[in-house]
């Protein structure tokens, strides 16, 4: 029996959501690991784009920042940042945006700005960066985030980036014609938006996880699909490639990530 951590299960599940012909706008951290795992396993031709301007990059190790030299050296082409945001992201060339968050609600609206009040925050987070426009300009958005009551909340403190808004067709009311969050991958399960209401519904549970655990770690009332699948466990190949990637990364960055 293969052994793996919940984080590995999450990363592998996220990677599997990507297709070989996707053009993916990659955030740093978990999204970067998932996207590169996909590239090194079932999606060798996937195009990975980082907001630093690197198009079609194939880093051998995960970047620490969004603009490590490795990203440019292994890219098909590197463009200026205004061109990246104007022609490629806003121009509608990206099929999937991959985002994480500090807070998330059941409609996939995300907060990476502040915990508490904007002017007098309890915690000042780094801010939106590329996310507000990644969330609306990419064909669809995958969210990846460890599940917890603190992060998965009924109401986020600040809407950094639009998901499905107030649900239903609310997203379209902002003049946005892209799909928005179509998948939420956590360390416990996979959720997808309800076809009409657009609230997240659990559609697949990772092996060994109970419904109670999911409910306990979610700040909103969890909905389960009529048929909930069990997520396939990570294959030996997936785990091997992911672990080698992390090992190369740790070595390259001179210490433990």
């Amino acid at each position, binding site marked *: 029996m293969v052994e793996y951590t919940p984080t590995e299960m999450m990363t592998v599940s996220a990677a599997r959501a990507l297709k070989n012909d996707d053009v993916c706008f990659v955030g740093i951290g978990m999204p970067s690991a998932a996207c590169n795992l996909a590239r090194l396993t079932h999606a060798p031709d996937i195009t990975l784009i980082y907001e630093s301007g690197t198009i079609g990059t194939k880093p051998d190790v995960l970047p620490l920042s969004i603009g490590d030299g490795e990203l440019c050296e292994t890219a098909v082409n590197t463009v200026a940042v205004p061109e990246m945001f104007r022609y490629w992201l806003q121009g509608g060339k990206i099929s999937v945006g991959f985002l994480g968050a500090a807070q998330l609600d059941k409609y996939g609206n995300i907060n990476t700005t502040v915990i508490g009040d904007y002017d007098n925050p309890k915690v000042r987070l*780094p801010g939106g960066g*590329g996310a507000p426009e990644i969330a609306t300009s990419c064909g669809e958005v995958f969210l990846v985030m460890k599940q917890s009551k603190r992060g998965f909340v009924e109401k986020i403190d600040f809407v950094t*980036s639009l998901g499905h808004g107030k649900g239903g067709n609310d997203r379209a009311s902002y003049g946005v014609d892209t799909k928005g969050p179509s998948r939420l991958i956590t360390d416990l399960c996979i959720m997808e938006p309800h076809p009409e209401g657009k609230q997240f519904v659990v559609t697949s549970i990772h092996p060994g996880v109970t419904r109670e655990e999911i409910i306990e770690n979610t700040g909103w009332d969890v909905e389960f699909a009529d048929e909930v699948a069990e997520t396939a466990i990570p294959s030996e190949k997936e785990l091997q490639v992911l672990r080698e990637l992390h090992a190369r990364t740790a070595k390259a960055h001179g210490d433990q990530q």
Partner: protein
Amino acid sequence: MVARFMSLKEAVASCVKDGDTISMEGFTHLIPHAAGHEIIRQGIKNLTLVRMTPDVIYDQLIGAGCAKKLIFSWGGNPGVGSLHRLRDAYEKSWPTKLEIEEHSHAAMANAYDAGAAGLPCAVFKGYRGAELPRVNPNIKFIECPFTGESLAAVPAIRPDVTVVHAQKANKKGDVLFEGIVGVQKEAVLAAKKSIITVEEIVDDFGDISPNAVMLPNWAVTAIVEVPGGAHPSYAQGYYKRDNAFYKAWDPIARDRETFQAWLEEHVINGGPEDFAAKREANKG
């Protein structure tokens, strides 16, 4: 008004003054750290600092008390965590109060583009359904006169001075950027004056593409040769990003006294010549 070659001290003294709006750019790559240190050493105050990703370079300037306002779109130490000096200034007004104006990356990138293009504002498909427009009066919406579509608008960025680092200048003062070129060219073209620190000054660029990312000498104010001047950031073809320094910065910046000791030792008592050794240490 062709670019002049000068020392870093002379460049900062002649271009940057109290109260200026300055932009120091470099998207992870080619961040002008040596020039940042010189601004701190010259005790310049009340700056409005503009930068998409105010990482360690602005944490240092803010902690040293140079800034009154920060215009930014992502404020963190990439891959590491918070900028403690920025948070201390914003949350506790130490060493001085810091006002912030917050945007998204798309907004800032478009605002630099608009600044370079001589426009008063940038128009883009942005901030749809996002909450920043509620708290930032410099985000407005206009209608496309043909389709009626609502489009976001932000003021163009027009700094008094832009400071960037590049790989090379030639003897005529033309400047060459390569690799992750970020918003540097736009930031220089948008500014009234510019300081470019470079890894080296060469006779000529040799066999480069006619479409290389360049600034001709008449589009630049001051050029300074500072080998290693981007450290702990990197200069592609010269040295790598010093990821260990970015991680080491976290505990240094977390505490006011540790930060001040670091500042005294490495900035106040340092100089641009210290960066050459950093370049050597991060080669290969």
